[in-house]
Structures are given as C-alpha cells and as structure tokens.
C-alpha cells in the first residue's frame, strides 16, 4: 500500500499557525517524522488560501523539499496555488483532487496533465453518492472520459471512493469496499485506487480509532486498494499492512488478517470458526469486521459486548 502521510493539513491548528507565521520548523518536523515512519509521499493540504494561495504553496513546497525527498500530494481548491506548487516540485506530484463537479472537472485534470502529475479523482459530483454502483457510474460517465480527453494515462489516476464514518454512516462502509473492487475493473489498465483512511474512524473514541481504520485497511486491500492517505506513524497500521503484504502468517493475528484479506478478495465473509474469541486481539478484530460490514450496529462500546 502506497502511503501518503496525512499530517500536514490546514485543519491542524499547529499547521495552520505555522503557515500563518511562515514558520518552517513545525512543518519540517512533521514531514521528516512521517517519512522516517515510512510515508511514501506527503499530503500538503493548505486549504483554499484565497488571498495568498500561490505564495503559500511555493513556501510550503520549498519548506518541505529542504528536508524530504518524496512526492508531494498537493491539496487545495485554489487553482493558481495548485499550479504554483506543480511548477515547484522536484518529484512527480499528486494533484488532490478533481471530482465530477463540472467546474472541478473542467479545470483540474488539464492542470495535472500539463505538469505530468498523478491525479486523485473523487467519485462524487456536487453531492456525495453513497451506493457503490452510483459511485462507479460517476467514475465511468464523468471522470474517465474527461481524464482520457486530457490524456492522463489511467495508471496515473488515483480513484477515491470517499470514505464515510462508521460511527454515523455505517451502511456505506461496505459500499466503499465494493466501490474499490469495481473501480479496479473499469478500464485496462485499471486506475489506481486511494482512500482517505482515517475518515472511517471519525467520531470513534480515540482509543479505538487505529483498530477501526487498520482493520478497514486490510479489507480495502483485499478488494484492491493501492494507496491511502494515512497516519504513517501508527504502529498497528504499519504492522498489519506489512503482515498482509508479506503474507506473514507467523502469528495468530497474522493468520486472521490474511484470512480477512483473502475472504474480502473473493467477496466472502470472514469465517467465524477460525477466530479464537478468547484472544482479545482476535475478538476485537472480528467485532470490528462485523461493524465495518454493517452486520452489527456500531456503538462506541461495541468492543465491550
């Protein structure tokens, strides 16, 4: 799984303050820490920056490139800022993002094409479609034609089905898994697929978030996920992705995760018979799978029962 570190984003007060004060140190610390933890690329979300977009983006890209040498995933709705960043990057950038919204679809893909960047394409229009087939339809009818029109190869496109929270939009957690599965079949070569993984655990008590998104990552990988915007410093996520990628079945948890991955890959349910419910780690994974598949209603205390 290609990991894009999520921490440099304007929603964080620390990042917002650093941008306002043009203070390099906090940004550079976040960048180095994420790359050292294994991030393959870094998300760079500066927000809309209506007044000084290009200047902020240039400063940000320069600040990052002073200390790390990984691709940057430029995330802003400000087109001028996006272009300023694209001109500045040393490695192939990732443009985050277009959607099927007519304005975005008109403006963003040509920019990615012009600078040979990868392009994240959200399977949504002005509104969020939740069902898998509707999301795939958006990809087929709006995103793919436009992307082909501007000449971006499909293997440079990261389709993002948009992840919704298990705590409030639980019905759609399995839909996103199916969307990933379908997106891998819409073209030859297929597009890459990407999710903003942490979204699934918004609203979940802090202590359970890593369990929720790490379990979800294993399921999404089983359905064909290629990349994710993640907290690269989360040890559990790192370890579980490693287990799945190396097919490490040397531990009971490893065997369970591989079973989960394989079952998802062939559209089957995890066999409850193989879960040792006396092992708290396995029980927690099984309960989380049940919740993410929308078989058991989510509640903050779902692990207690």
């Amino acid at each position, binding site marked *: 799984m290609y990991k894009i570190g999520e921490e440099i984003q304007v929603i964080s007060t620390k990042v917002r303050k650093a941008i306002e004060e043009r203070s390099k140190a906090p940004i550079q610390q976040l960048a180095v820490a994420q790359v050292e933890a294994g991030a393959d690329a870094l998300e760079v979300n500066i927000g809309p920056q209506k007044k000084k977009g290009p200047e902020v983006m240039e400063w940000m890209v320069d600040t990052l490139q002073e200390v790390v040498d990984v691709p940057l995933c430029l995330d802003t709705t400000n087109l001028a800022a996006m272009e300023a960043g694209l001109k500045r990057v040393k490695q192939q950038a990732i443009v985050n993002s277009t959607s099927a919204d007519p304005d975005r679809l008109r403006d963003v893909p040509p920019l990615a094409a012009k600078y040979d960047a990868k392009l994240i394409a959200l399977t949504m229009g002005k509104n969020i479609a939740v069902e898998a087939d509707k999301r795939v339809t958006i990809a087929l009818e709006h995103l793919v034609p436009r992307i082909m029109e501007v000449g971006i190869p499909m293997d440079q496109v990261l389709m993002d089905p948009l992840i919704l929270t298990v705590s*409030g939009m639980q019905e759609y957690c399995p839909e996103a898994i199916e969307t990933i599965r379908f997106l891998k079949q819409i073209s030859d070569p297929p597009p890459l697929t990407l999710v903003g993984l942490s979204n699934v655990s918004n609203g979940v008590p802090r202590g359970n978030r890593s369990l929720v998104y790490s379990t979800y990552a294993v399921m999404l990988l089983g359905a064909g996920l290629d990349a994710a915007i993640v907290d690269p410093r989360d040890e559990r996520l790192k370890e579980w992705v490693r287990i799945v990628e190396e097919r490490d079945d040397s531990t009971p948890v490893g065997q369970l995760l591989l079973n989960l991955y394989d079952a998802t890959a062939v559209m089957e349910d995890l066999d409850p018979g193989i879960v040792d419910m006396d092992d708290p780690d396995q029980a927690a994974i099984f309960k989380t799978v049940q919740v993410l598949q929308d078989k*058991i*209603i*989510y*509640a*903050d*205390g779902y692990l*207690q*029962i």
Partner: protein
Amino acid sequence: MRHHPLQYCGCVAIGDTEGDKTNLEGVAVMPVAVETPKKEWTGQVREVVLGATEAEGGTRSKTVTVGGESTLPFLDFEAPMPNPPRIAVEIQDRKPSDWSSVLLTVWGQVLDDPAAWAKAVEELDVDLLVLKINLTDADGNETTAEQARASVRKVLDATGLPLIVFGPGQTELDIDLLVAVAEEAAGERVVLGVCDDKNYKTIVAAALAHGHLVNGRTAMDVNLAKQLNILISDMGLPLDRVIMDPTTAALGYGVEYGYSAMERLRLAALQGDGMTQQPMLVTPGEEAWRMKEAKVGEDVPQAWGDWEERAITWETLTATTLIHSGADIVVLRHPESVRRVEDLISRLWNKGD
C-alpha cells in the same frame, strides 16, 4: 381492447392452485403456484414484563408483556409475534398547560385529578398508563419530589394498570423526581423514563434498588440507542428490564427518520445483534399533538377540514406508521385515536405459532 400485461398474472392466482380462475374481465387465466417468500431470522426481541401483581410483589391487576417477536411486525407467517403492539395512554400529574383544546374537551373534568384521569383511561380498556410529571405544579412552582410521590401514589391506588412514569425531561429534576417515584412505587415494576445518557446512572440505580424497569431514550440515532443499552446493561440491570425509546417525530415532521432508525434497530435485533433487542416505546401522541395540524383549529386553511378529525387522524397515522416499523408500545392521547389504533392492531395481529 388491449389488456395491461399485469392483468394476466393478476392477484387472483397468487397462492392458489385449485380451480379455474378468471381475471377481472372474465378471461380465463392459468392458476399460478406462488410460494410466499419467508425470511428466517436468527434473533429475537427480548420479552419485557411491565407491572407486578400481588403475587409478584406489586399491586397491579395484571402484567403486560411486550416484545418477543422474531420477525417484522405482523409477519406471523414467518415467525410468531407472541405479543401485540401495546397502547399506553398518557395522563399528567396536573391539568396540562399546553395541550390542544380538542384534548382538554374530550377528557373534561378528570384533567384536574390524576386518579380520576387514570380511572377514565382504564375504562378505555387499554394495556398501559403513562404518567407524565410536569416541570411545575399548577401554581407554577417547580414540582417537588413529594408532589411526584403523591401523584404516583394516587394513580397506583386508582388503577390496576401497569405504569410508566415520565419525568419532565430535565436531567437534574428528572433525577430528583424519578428517584422519589421509584421509592414510592417499589416492587411495582414501573417503567422509569426518561433515562438518557446523562442521567442513566441514577435512574438505573433507582430501578435496581426498587425493582423497576427503565425506558432508555436517544435522539433518533441507532448508534446512540445501542450504546445506551450497553451502558445500562453495564450497570447490572438485566436487559429484560430495559425498554428503548428511539424518539420519534410526527407525521410531516420527520416521522420517516424515526421510522428508519426503528427499522434499522429492529433489523439488527432480528439479525442477532444482542444490544438492540429491546422492545421499543415511542410517543406519537405527544409528537402529533405538538404540531399545528393537530393542535390548532384557527388560522389554518379551510381545506384542512374538520379540526378534531384531522387531529385524530394525525395522531393515528403517526402511531400506526411507527407500529409498522416495530414499535412495541405507542403512547397516545386521544381516546378516539386509541380506538382506531386498537382496531388496526386487532385486525393485523395474529399470534402465529
């Protein structure tokens, strides 16, 4: 004349393999054997018994059991529905200050005396009584624990119906009043409400101490409803003493959201999700009578028709909609709504086997 294609596979033949049939225009149609699709559920709603008779340490003339179903409402061909949805009628500890004049007129004199009001409800031949304690007394002073205790005593003495008691709905005051009510009604298996995520510790402790049940209310949110059941259960109250109140809204004001939340909770229960298997109580009477379509007769379009008929229809439709999404107890206000909802239940309910 051309026929609509559907006429040839018309309803006359469904489930019937004997004898020649004709469609509505007299044309012979082939009998078609159609097997009724049946869903087999693995889960079951818990049975909860309200009220205690003398033999069980209370003074009620009967107990009322709710829940126990292992299929969706009224689908008795799939699985038994051992208990029908129950109607509870709401009375208050004093004459309500915000009720529609339609309601005030129909209840008349009894409004000033909860004992008389409770007796009038019992005469309607319903199963359950809800006593709502107001925030303030008739003089406008905050209701005291002693007043709440006295009201509950009067009602318990006046009727043999199992009782549900609602506090005013303000966390602090609810705690004071409901703890006093729980003491006064010790052993009666009264349902204490509103028990929510802020006051549940005290309310559940009171229920545990005095042999009562709780009504756990959450705001039309399946996740929170389940979480509250978990919290209540963690306190040690057995789940056969917990009713859940997912909250509802009136027809035209979001009843469909309440319906969806209840439907989802019930489907989860039937699929075996143990923390959603509580019988559900909702208050369509309170919700419907809050809305102008029911509440007022002036300054509304003439086309809305007769006020009382419209108001009763509003309450009845809100209630019956919720019964179809799995409500086990509906709390109503108008006697005619009670009659109509009772009529619906008696036509649809079949115990099954």
